């Protein structure tokens, strides 16, 4: 089974990728429809919670506190998980995590694994790495299965195949499962997936998962899901390997009270996740014989070190920001060139990749604030976007960068705004300068250079003969 992943060294900028995707009318229809449905479901179940704002604040505070004492809680988790019979491994980066995981799979004696939907394993391209050394990974989450069988990339954090509709999914199943007579009713598709997966659940001896939460106080790990396929992967295999970002730790079991309310309502518009699995180490005659958890940094400590961007790590991967984002709604997730798409991806990806490949992402937002409004842990995404834009500007205007046209324009404008006299002069000059561009009806329909983006589809009315301040002064004299 061939696997593809986002290659950060080769993905195009957001602008370039978005331009292509905007031409895909099927994709845009699918994304508009699906995000609309989830958004409405979320609005209903959030609306019925009288203490939603207090819950959001609690979620934020728990995350804030934990991250400020991350070393303490991670070590506490390690102690308690180990005491319960689990094995804890530490991974500095993605390569580390992949190497440890490959080793553990080999040690388990299996050459294949069944996987629970996991963003962390997507982030590190685990399936590609496993395949490269002759180990097969089978995605068992329905949407992930569709992506894997379709040789596609995930476009959404919770619903990775959100950009596909039922007919497209049917075609993938017919082709990849060799089912020429497959019907197109949801039951037909679910039955096909069930038959396909059941054989894997019963055969494969090693499972790989991510984690929604790690509980420091007990050493327990939490996975929430809607299908029950995750529960199969957590209970049937002999060896279970969990890969989790270090920001997934929470202090107490009791804290789940907050997050297990915030997460399902925000993510899928459900009051409660149908399957909430919590396991602690290993137990005789119940569940896997061996349990390993890989705690992965992969740039998270860099994010943590940046005080203004730190809140990015509060994210519980609910994707509410993706569903509500007017930019994501137009382009879908692939434009973001990362498994983390949408507003959270626009702030997380450039930080995980140290801004090198993600420079266009902080600008992939109109700063409308819809993401912040729905975020269950109150990540002020617009603020972090602006902070990251500042870092991009600092990087881009170094050395020869001072000569880039945007920088020159911004510096000139700033110089003008610092003096009322210069501002007046610029207003007069602007009127003269635009004259050749103004048509007979008094409109500008073409602009040069950077400003040309405006006149692609928009006109601009010409500057009035008199500014407001000129009018106000004239009036005072009369």
């Amino acid at each position, binding site marked *: 089974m061939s696997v593809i992943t986002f290659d950060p060294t080769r993905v195009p900028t*957001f*602008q370039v990728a*978005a*331009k292509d995707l*905007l031409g895909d009318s099927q994709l845009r229809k699918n994304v508009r429809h699906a995000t609309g449905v989830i958004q409405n479901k979320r609005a209903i179940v959030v609306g019925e919670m009288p203490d939603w704002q207090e819950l959001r604040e609690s979620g934020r505070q728990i995350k804030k506190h934990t991250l400020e004492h991350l070393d303490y809680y991670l070590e506490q988790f390690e102690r308690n998980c180990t005491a319960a019979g689990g094995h804890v491994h530490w991974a500095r980066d993605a390569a580390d995590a992949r190497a440890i995981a490959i080793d553990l799979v080999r040690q388990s004696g299996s050459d294949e694994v069944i996987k629970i939907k996991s963003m962390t394993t997507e982030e590190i391209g685990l399936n590609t790495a496993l395949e490269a050394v002759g180990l097969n990974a089978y995605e068992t989450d329905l949407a992930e299965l569709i992506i894997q069988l379709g040789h596609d990339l995930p476009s959404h954090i919770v619903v990775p195949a959100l950009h596909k509709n039922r007919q497209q999914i049917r075609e993938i199943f017919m082709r990849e499962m060799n089912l020429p007579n497959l019907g197109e009713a949801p039951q037909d598709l679910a039955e096909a997936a069930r038959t396909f997966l059941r054989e894997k659940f019963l055969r494969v001896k090693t499972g790989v998962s991510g984690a929604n939460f790690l509980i420091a106080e007990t050493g327990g790990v939490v996975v929430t899901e809607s299908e029950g396929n995750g529960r199969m992967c957590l209970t049937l295999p002999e060896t279970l390997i969990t890969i989790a970002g270090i920001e997934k730790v929470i202090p107490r079991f009791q804290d789940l009270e907050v997050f297990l309310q915030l997460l399902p309502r925000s993510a899928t518009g459900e009051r409660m996740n149908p399957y909430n699995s919590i396991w602690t180490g290993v137990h005789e005659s119940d569940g896997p014989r061996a349990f390993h958890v890989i705690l992965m940094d992969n740039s998270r400590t860099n994010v943590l070190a940046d005080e203004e961007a730190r809140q990015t790590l509060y994210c519980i991967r609910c994707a509410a920001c993706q569903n509500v984002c*007017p*930019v994501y709604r*137009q*382009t879908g997730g692939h434009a973001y060139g990362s498994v983390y798409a949408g507003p959270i991806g626009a702030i997380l990806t450039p930080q995980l990749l140290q801004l090198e490949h993600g420079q266009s992402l*902080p*600008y*992939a*937002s*109109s*700063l*409308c*604030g*819809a993401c*912040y*409004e729905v975020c269950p842990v109150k990540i002020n995404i617009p*603020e972090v976007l*602006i902070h990251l*834009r*500042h*870092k*991009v*500007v*600092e990087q881009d205007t170094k050395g020869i960068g001072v000569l880039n046209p945007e920088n020159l324009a*911004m*510096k000139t*404008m*700033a110089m*003008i*705004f*610092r*003096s*009322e006299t210069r*501002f007046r002069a610029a*207003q007069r000059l*602007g009127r003269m300068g635009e004259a050749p561009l103004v048509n007979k009806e008094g*409109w500008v*329909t073409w602009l040069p250079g*950077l*400003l040309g*983006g*405006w006149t*692609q*589809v*928009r*006109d*601009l*009315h010409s500057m*009035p003969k*008199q*500014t*407001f*301040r000129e*009018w*106000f*002064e004239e009036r005072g004299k009369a």
Partner: protein
Amino acid sequence: LQVALFITCYNDTLFPETGKAVVRVLERLGHTVVFPAGQTCCGQMHWNTGYQAEALPLLSRFVAQFKDAEAVVVPSSSCVAMMRDHYPMMAEQIGDPGLIAEVAALLPRVWEFSELLTKKLGLEDVGAYFPHRVTYHASCHGLRSLHLGDGPMKLLGSVRGIQLVPLAGLEQCCGFGGTFAIKNAEVSSAMLAEKVQAVLQTQAELCTACDNSCLMHIEGSLHRQRTGVRTLHLAEILAGDAE
């Protein structure tokens, strides 16, 4: 009340009629409007694009110009959001204790135009007459940062002769986003297309808002497509009094 008008750089240059309308409405209500001459720009464009160092002096300039004002009125929701959301933090960055205190003292006296009428002056009916079919676009900053709520709709609802039509997808961004419209022109256009479609569905003659930057964006497409639908700042509707 003596109200100091911060017209904002783009209204001053591109939308003087909005400023005139603000003056007309406030004077009609018996208030005095003054215009501090040294004002220029709030710094929003620089700040939001990532040019932080360039925005800081504009904060100091604004404070110097308006710190003694009884009340400040700004006919632009995004500029007011810029001040409320960022000025306190920016003053901290500059690190001048005097400036920090001045910002803290000044901000509660800064009002977006519709807010000044509804929240500060407690008005809904400002005695306007405007016999046209109108739809209202809730600009993102007005909606989510200033929490204007139904204030603008109440003002519009009290205008004599007006036929007010609700806009579908009221909470959706029009796709302007300052430099976003240029840096991501294609995505911005796609967002704008949805907004314009919603405006046209209302069969309104005019689309209004509390922010000319959104309106300039919407107008740009309405005009390019020769729809005949115009845009007009809320203040210009409230200034209508040819009864």
